[in-house]
């Protein structure tokens, strides 16, 4: 498994887009499984560290010794999009549960919890991001990598094969755009 993934990752980094198609489900399965495990354990005061999670998936799936450091950025590029899907699904489910749509999972504590402040609305971000992608797909990718995958500017630049300067600009504009789009 590890060898296979490493191989595919190399192929894809070398420009073979078909490798990506094979790679995605493998990474997705792993991430989802791990995310589920983390989310089960989620509790107040503890947060889901998406970056840590992707990193762990990377270490588990990829034969780290046999890949170039750039491959890590490429792996994160795939993982970022998948992580977005997983987190948004999770948020959607949680929302549904809170509206009483599924089993009664609320506790007395949950039900009394004050409305959240300073929290991000993941579903709104997701929607806005989808819209942004139609205007500037590169910006949407940057957001995925920076926000959902936690890559640094430099790592993002490597993954997207662009300059750090361009990443910085896209990141700054995209955040303002999304902020406006989501509104209050």
């Amino acid at each position, binding site marked *: 498994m590890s060898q296979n993934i490493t191989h595919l990752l190399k192929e894809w980094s070398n420009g073979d887009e078909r490798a990506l198609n094979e790679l995605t489900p493998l990474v997705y399965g792993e991430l989802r499984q791990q995310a589920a495990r983390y989310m*089960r*354990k989620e*509790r*107040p*005061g503890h*947060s*889901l*560290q*998406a*970056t*840590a*999670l992707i990193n762990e998936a990377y*270490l*588990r799936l990829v034969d*780290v*010794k046999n890949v170039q450091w750039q491959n890590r950025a490429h792996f994160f590029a795939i993982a970022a999009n998948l*992580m977005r899907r997983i*987190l948004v699904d999770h948020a959607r489910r949680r929302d549904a549960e*809170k*509206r*009483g*749509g*599924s*089993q*009664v*999972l*609320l*506790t*007395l*504590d*949950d*039900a*009394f*919890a*004050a409305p*959240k*402040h*300073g*929290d*991000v609305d*993941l579903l709104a971000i997701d929607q806005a991001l989808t819209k942004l992608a139609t*205007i*500037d797909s590169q910006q949407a990718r940057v*957001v995925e990598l*920076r*926000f*959902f*995958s*936690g890559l640094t500017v430099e790592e993002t630049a490597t993954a997207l094969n662009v300059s750090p300067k361009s990443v*910085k*600009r*896209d990141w*700054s*504009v995209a*955040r*303002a*755009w*999304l*902020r*406006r789009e989501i509104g209050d």
Partner: protein
Amino acid sequence: MTSQQWQLVKEVFEATLECDSKERTAFLDGACCGDDEVRKEVESLLTAHDRDGDFMNEPIGKLIPDDKPILTAGQRFGHYEEISLLGQGGMGQVHLALDTRLGRKVALKLLPISYIHDADRVQRLEREARAASALNHPNIVTIHEIGEAESLHFMATEFIDGVTLREHLTNARMTVGEVVEVGAQVASALQAAHEAGIVHRDVKPENIMLRRDGVVKVLDFGLVKLIEEHRTEREGEVDPMLADSHPSFASTFVTSPGVVLGTVAYMSPEQARGEEVDLRTDVWSLGVLLHEMITGHAPFVGATPGDVLTSIREHDAPALPSDAGVPVELRRIVTKALTKEKSGRYQSVGEIARDLKNLKEELTVESRLKRFRHSDSNLDLSVKVTKQNLGETADNAATKTRVNNSNAFVKHLPEQIKHHLVLTGAAVILFTGVIALTYLAISRNKTDLDAGPKRSIAVLPLKPIDEARRDKILETGIADTLVQHLSSMRGFIVRSFNATHGYENPAQDAIAAGREQQVDYVISTSYELGDGHIHIRADIVNVASGQTEYIYQFEKTFSDVLVLQDAIADEIENRLRTQFATTSNPTTARRGTTNKEAYRLYLHGMYLANNRNIQDAQLAVQALEQAVELDPNYARAWAGLAYAHRTVSIWSDLTTRETHEKSIAAINRALQLDENLSEGHSALCENKYLYEWDFAGAERECKRAIELEPNSSQAHEIYSRYLMGRGRHDEAIAEIETAIDLEPTSKFNQRNYGRALFYARRYPEAVTQFKRVIAMDQNFVGTYSWLTSTLALQGKESEAYEWFRKLLSVRKVDDETVKTFERAYQTSGWRGVWREWLTKFDKVGGTNFDGAAYNAQLGERDKALEYLETVFQRREIWLTYLRVDPRLDPLRNDPRFIELLTRVEGE
């Protein structure tokens, strides 16, 4: 907007951000090249940016946590100082804080301001919460203070280092033992509260804390009432689904249409109907809790809270699944607690508490019985065991349960016990009625170790993925290092490496090993050696479910082998620590050598010493002597050497002074090197009571050893023998039981259990135990003479002789000797056998102490005392038991005996 325009927007936006805000307008005028669309877009983006520049600045991972804490680390609040946020929810936030006046940690609950705007209400809350706290019950959380500071109401309670039952249920399925344990403790808390007239009304997993040491604490007495009143006053909306229910109830529990508190799942039918509730509502909730702990989900569920309530009102609780290993008695308890009509339910929590407590005790007996199921193929006991499929049980045709049909004895067992035999398909327990009854008789009211949140764990030797590239030393070395590391973790009880050393066959099934070791988890690790690196995969397998719960994979560069072992063990330890939220005890001794060869010799030597026979013990001495020669500062090896010497002296009947001195020297060396070496103190303890007769000193050392390593089976076993000799029988039995719990497969522990019973003069139980040990290993010869001695003391001479014959055949004694004994028995009965044995001392083995004992039994006082004198001169270890050995009873009035006893024990 065209893509060109968009490109311009981006550039201008970025450039403008770098401008001074005053110059922005002028800059935009120039930069936008008169394109109004671009300009408007940039301005609007700038506005958004200025409004919240930190928006999405942090990756998602850091943005998921809940509301901001009211207090932050180090912040003062009254005379408290915040340490960390423990949790939060509708009842406010709970912080771990330091009470600066008393210097103790407390859980500080900050109540939401909105709930408490009425002095009366606060007082009532205070009264009720205090009343419960004042019960001073071990399972009710203690409230230190209720007050107000910085316009917030707070409650400071005892800090409980543990998790809520909800968290526990989310992370793990509970065993029947745990369910009953937790249920019994919760019931006990509620019973005390009820007796004081306090109804909890909100018994649910969120309000129950499991402390790491297994103590269960019930929280929030009285709080729910406060919230109810607050809701009643504030909320006017009524869920249409609840229109038919009592208005005050509806307003109490409905916050807005569609959102009903999770508490509905734990509500009693009378609560769901909006009727008056009494103490029996807590009985119901406890039933729901038990159901959820057993199955992992509450009994009444529905798509909406309204559905849940309807279900509670109208339907019977679903039956517990038949294949979940749930004892019939537990089903009965849950069914009775979940009876719709109050009158059919337990009428008080006290009743259910009592039933749970009884069940707990019975399960403890069973868990001991289970220890022997692996030896059933060897069983050669008075009642023959056969396996036969009885077919389906009456209460559920699908239950694939096998019971011991042909064993008439079982039929006469009390009804409840019989049910317990019918545990489940997988966990079939086959045993004889004799054992069952004896175990019932000797079972003590002792908390089962596996009932608490501590997890028992066994580390298997590593398995190579590629058999061609195998490094056996690495395999045992890593496992041993890992055992050392894990043993220092508070949340685990780790089987000693001696116990798991034998599972080195790569084909060994992890679950089978786990069952044999009676552990919750097995760590099964495989490795693959590459050029200069090693790939490790550790599977953390849950033995009960058979599932691999976690897999840790990582690579390490292959450097120094010992550094590597530590690195791997550290890695796994760290992950386990996070996963199981436990901490390490830093004082525990670690490997303690950097010399590879010394370490290898140590492992080898300890393996040999634990075989406990004279040849291996002598080889062990050699190996360990080499180890300390290679690394003279290797404390554990010195302690091991002391142990090996002692083993030689115990098993050889040789003059023991020399080995004793060597042993002492080695111990002293070990403790000089590492004062905190538990095995060093154990060894010292044993030496003190076996050879020096310094009993006070021995006890000190034994207690120190246990303090340093509470989960060391050896430390408890050594202490138990000390207690046997001192006539402190109950304590001795408790200690040996602990030793067995920690290392169930050790036949030495099992035999010493029999000895503890023997010295306590509980002969029938001792007989059963010795027989069981022989069933475990019929070549474990020392056990036969204990058994025959006990039977003879009971006057069961023919049975004693029967077992004596078995001993002769196991020892392959020549035919002629066998015939001599046969004749002796025919003419003079069991006494004839003893006489004959005394003349053939050398051939059948034995000690001078046994010689004294048999002579004493034969009425040969002088000879017996002569033997004892020899024992004394040679300082045989058995003198420790001079005071208690029942076989010496005929001598006890003799002044010479009394004088000897004084010589050994002092005045």
